[in-house]
C-alpha cells in the first residue's frame, strides 16, 4: 500500500451543499411552539473520485444523518446533494432511487443486526441484482461468486446462513452486499467498532484493498480516530450538526485548528504513558436548545465573549484548503506554536 498521490483531475463524485435536516418534535397542535431538532444544519462536503473522506464527531453530531441523506433515505429540509452529476431526490420515481442505489451503498456497524438471519448469503447478494434487472442465472451466479472471492469468502459458502459465520466473516458479507451492484461510493458507518479487536485489522485492510482494486470512494464514519487517520485522505469534523473543521488528514491530525478537534485528539489515551487524559468539561449540549454563538463555546477553554454572541463563527477556508469554524483559530494556533517551542513539545 502506498500513499496516494494528489490527483490532478479533481473531479468530484459527491457534492453536498448547505444540507440541513430538521426534525419537528411534538407541540404545534394547540398553538404550543413547535420544537425543532436541527440534526444537520448547513453542511457542505465534497468527495473526490478514489478518495476516502473521514467523518468524525461524537454521537449526536449528525454524522449518520448526513449519511442517510446521501443515501436518499432522509428528506433534507434544505440543500442539495449531487452524486455523480445527478441530484439526489427523495420520494421520487423508483428509477431515480434505483440509479442512486447503484451509485451509493452503505456498510453498517453491526453485522449481527444488519443481515437477514433467515436468508442465505446467496439470497442476500442475489436480491439486489434481480431488483436491478440482472436476470440471467449464469450472470447472477458469476457475480455472487466473484464478489465472495473479492471479500475473502469462498463461493461455496454462499448457501450458508449468517449464524454460521463469525463476526468478521459477517462483516465481509455486509461489504459484499454493499458492493454487489458495483457502486462508486461506499459509506462505511463504524464498520469495525462492533467487531472483536483482533479481527478489526482484517476488515480495515480489506476495505482499503477493495477501494484500490474497484476504484471506490469512501465516506468513513468512525469515532476511532486511529482508524480514521489510517484510512482517510481528508477528514471532516462535525459538532452539533455542523462541520467545524475540514482538511487534509495530515493537517487535521498534526495541526488541528479547531479547539474541538484538538480536544478529540487529546482525549485519546496514550498507551505508552501513564498520564492523565486531557478533559474538555461538560457534555454535548442539548441539540434542542443549542448554545448561543459557537456551539462548542460552553466546553471550550479558549472561549471569550465573541464566541458566545450571535451570529456564530462561519466555516472559513484557508488558501491551503483547510477549513475551520472558529473565531479565534489563528490566535490559538499562534499560542499553541509558542507553547510548543517554549516547552519543546505539545
Amino acid at each position, binding site marked *: 500500500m502506498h500513499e496516494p498521490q494528489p490527483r490532478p483531475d479533481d473531479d468530484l463524485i459527491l457534492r453536498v451543499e448547505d444540507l440541513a435536516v430538521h426534525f419537528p418534535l411534538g407541540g404545534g397542535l394547540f398553538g404550543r411552539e413547535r420544537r425543532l431538532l436541527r440534526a444537520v444544519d448547513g453542511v457542505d462536503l465534497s468527495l473526490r473520485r478514489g478518495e476516502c473522506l473521514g467523518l468524525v464527531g461524537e454521537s449526536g453530531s449528525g454524522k449518520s444523518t448526513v449519511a442517510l441523506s446521501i443515501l436518499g433515505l432522509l428528506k433534507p429540509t434544505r440543500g442539495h446533494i449531487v452524486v455523480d452529476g445527478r441530484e439526489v431526490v427523495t420520494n421520487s420515481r423508483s428509477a431515480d432511487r434505483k440509479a442512486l442505489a447503484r451509485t451509493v451503498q452503505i456498510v453498517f456497524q453491526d453485522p449481527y443486526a444488519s443481515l437477514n438471519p433467515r436468508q442465505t448469503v446467496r439470497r442476500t447478494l442475489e436480491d439486489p441484482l434481480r431488483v436491478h434487472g440482472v436476470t440471467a442465472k449464469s450472470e447472477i451466479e458469476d457475480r455472487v461468486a466473484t464478489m465472495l472471492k473479492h471479500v475473502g469468502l469462498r463461493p461455496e459458502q454462499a448457501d450458508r446462513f449468517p449464524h454460521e459465520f463469525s463476526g468478521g466473516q459477517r462483516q465481509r458479507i455486509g461489504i459484499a452486499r454493499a458492493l454487489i451492484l458495483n457502486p462508486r461510493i461506499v459509506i462505511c458507518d463504524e464498520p469495525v467498532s462492533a467487531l472483536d479487536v*483482533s479481527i478489526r485489522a482484517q476488515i480495515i485492510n480489506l476495505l*482499503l484493498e477493495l477501494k484500490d482494486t474497484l476504484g471506490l470512494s469512501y465516506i468513513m464514519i468512525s469515532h476511532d*480516530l486511529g482508524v480514521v*487517520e*489510517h484510512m482517510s485522505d481528508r477528514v471532516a469534523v462535525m459538532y452539533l450538526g455542523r462541520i467545524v473543521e475540514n482538511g487534509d488528514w495530515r493537517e487535521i491530525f498534526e495541526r488541528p485548528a479547531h479547539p474541538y478537534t484538538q480536544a478529540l485528539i487529546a*482525549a485519546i489515551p496514550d498507551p505508552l504513558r*501513564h498520564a492523565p*487524559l486531557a478533559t474538555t468539561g461538560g457534555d454535548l449540549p442539548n441539540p434542542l436548545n443549542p448554545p448561543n454563538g459557537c456551539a462548542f463555546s460552553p466546553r471550550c477553554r479558549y472561549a471569550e465573549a465573541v464566541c458566545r454572541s450571535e451570529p456564530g463563527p462561519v466555516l472559513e477556508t484557508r488558501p491551503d484548503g483547510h477549513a475551520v469554524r472558529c473565531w479565534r483559530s489563528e490566535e490559538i494556533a499562534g499560542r499553541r506554536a509558542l507553547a510548543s517551542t517554549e516547552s519543546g513539545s505539545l
Partner: protein
Amino acid sequence: MTGVPLIEVENLRIDLDDGSRRVAAAEGVSFRISRGETFGLVGESGCGKSITALALIGLLRSPLSIGGGVIRFEGREIQRLSAAGQRELRGNRIAMIFQEPMTALNPVSPVGRQIAEMFVLHKGKSWREANQLAVESLASVRVPAPERRVNDYPHQLSGGMRQRVMIAIALACGPDLLIADEPTTALDVTVQAEIIELMRNLCAERGTAILMISHDLGLVANVCRRVAVMYAGRIVEERGSADIFRAPSHPYTQGLVDSLPRLGSRAALGRVRLKEIAGVVPAITGFPDGCRFNPRCAQATDICRTAAPETDLLEAGGFVRCHHHA
C-alpha cells in the same frame, strides 16, 4: 507491598453448564491486587474477563458457577462466606460499575434514592441523612446542581451523567476495590476522558483499588499500573503497563499491539498495511487443545497444539504463558 493483598485470585475456574456438559469458560486465572493499586484485565468478548469480575463479587448465576480455585478478600475466602457475609462485602467493600449505565440503573427510581439506598443498607443511616449524603455524593462526581439532580430519573440524564451516578453509587460506601467493567465503552471519547479522570482521581484520593476490565488495551495501559491479557479463558500475559505496549511478550498481545492503527503512526511511518491476526476468536465450547491461541499463531509448533504452556516469569517482572515467547 507487605502483608496480605487486598484481593487474591488463585487458579480460578468458572464452569459453563450448557445442559449436557460443563465447559470451563475461564480456568487457571490467578492474580493479586494490592490496596490502592490499579489493575487491568484486557481481552475480547468471550475471553472470560467479565465473568471473572462477577465471580469476585459473588454474582455468578446459573449456567455459570465457580468450578474451582480460591478468591480471597483480605485473606478471607469469599466462597466460604455466608450469603449475608457476601452481601456485606458487595457494595460496601467491593463495588462495581457496568458498561451501560442505562440498564444498570433502576429506571423508575430517582437517582438520588438509588445513591441514598447505599447509605441506608450498608451504613445504617436514616433516609433523611442518606438523602443529604446522596447530594454530597453527586457533588463529588461533579454533577452540576446536585440538589436538583437527585430528583431526576436516569432517562433525564445524558450517558456521561448516568455513568457519574453509577460511580457515585459505587463509591458511596468508600469501598476498598472498585471493579469497572468497560466503564466507558458506551461513551464518546471526550466523555470517556472525563469519566476516567474522575474515577482515577476519586480512587487515588480514597485509596480505592481499581480492577478495570476492557477490550481496549490502549486505555487500560494508560489507566492501570499492571495489566493482564486474557485469551479464551486464560491469562496469557501479565505485565507492568509500561512494558506491555513497548515489548509485548505473548504472540497474541503482540498481535493486538501491532494490528491496531495508532494515532500518529501513519504520519510517522506512512500508511503501511496493518498486521492481521489470522483466524477467528474460538467459541467457549470449542477451545483448541494445547495453547488456545495456536490456530491463529504464526509461531505455533507441535508442542503448542498438544500442551498448554505453563507460566513463565519474565525478568522484567510479570509472566507469560507461551512455549516460544519473546
